[in-house]
């Protein structure tokens, strides 16, 4: 289950809409081990493509160092599909390398409504998970024991 604040969902969707028809991408960082997305970081799509995205390598190094220094990790890694459904492609699966991350996909193929879904991708295996959008984390339990056992 991905539990995520409403404003962070709005920020991801706004980014995806703004970059449409190119794919948009970014991360939401949170404290290491917390499973709690907190800090929205929009990334440049170095490919500027309607069918592919890649974090700019120099920007990624800066962002990853800042996360390290703040004891954060990428809790959510998001990108948009602009003409297809919000489901990981073979390319998405081949690149997925963060077993602890929630891979969020946003489809902007329809102009008026968006589709936002979340997945775990571990060793090439995709598992969709429910998304719980909350106003604040204060009253929602987002502890590590919400993460299903890896078995």
């Amino acid at each position, binding site marked *: 289950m991905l539990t995520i604040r409403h404003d962070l969902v709005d920020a991801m969707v706004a980014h995806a809409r703004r970059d449409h028809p190119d794919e948009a991408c970014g991360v939401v960082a949170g404290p290491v081990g917390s499973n709690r997305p907190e800090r929205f970081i929009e990334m440049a799509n170095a490919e500027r493509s309607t069918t592919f995205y890649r974090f700019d*390598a120099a920007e990624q*190094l800066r962002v990853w160092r800042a996360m390290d220094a703040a004891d954060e990790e990428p809790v959510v890694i998001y990108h948009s599909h602009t003409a297809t459904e919000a489901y990981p492609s073979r390319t998405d699966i081949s690149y997925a390398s963060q077993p602890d991350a929630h891979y969020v996909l946003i489809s902007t193929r329809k102009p008026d409504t968006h589709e936002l879904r979340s997945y775990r991708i571990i060793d090439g295996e995709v598992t969709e998970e429910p998304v719980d959008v909350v106003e604040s984390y204060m009253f929602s339990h987002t502890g590590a024991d919400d993460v299903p056992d890896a078995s």
Partner: protein
Amino acid sequence: MSVTVSVPTILRTYTGGEKSVKASGSTIAEVIEDLEIRHSGIKGRLVKDGSLHRFVNVYVNDEDVRFVGGLDAKVHDGDNVTILPAVAGGSAAHERQTML
């Protein structure tokens, strides 16, 4: 030349969980050969068909080595080499041939 290599979570299975390891060499290729001697199996995750694997980014200090010679990029004593998993993907059914 002795350098410090930052290892991403995904590759720490090869380094016994260590986040940062020492290696030596005067180019990235030599550093990777030395890493392979100390942490068997890691090279296969970094190099494919004689060049850097597209799934990883390798930096010398702040420089992406793809822009400074790739595996031939020079390293100097005390440099920091950082390995990060590339974050990429997209709706394309087939991967693009050129990734830069």
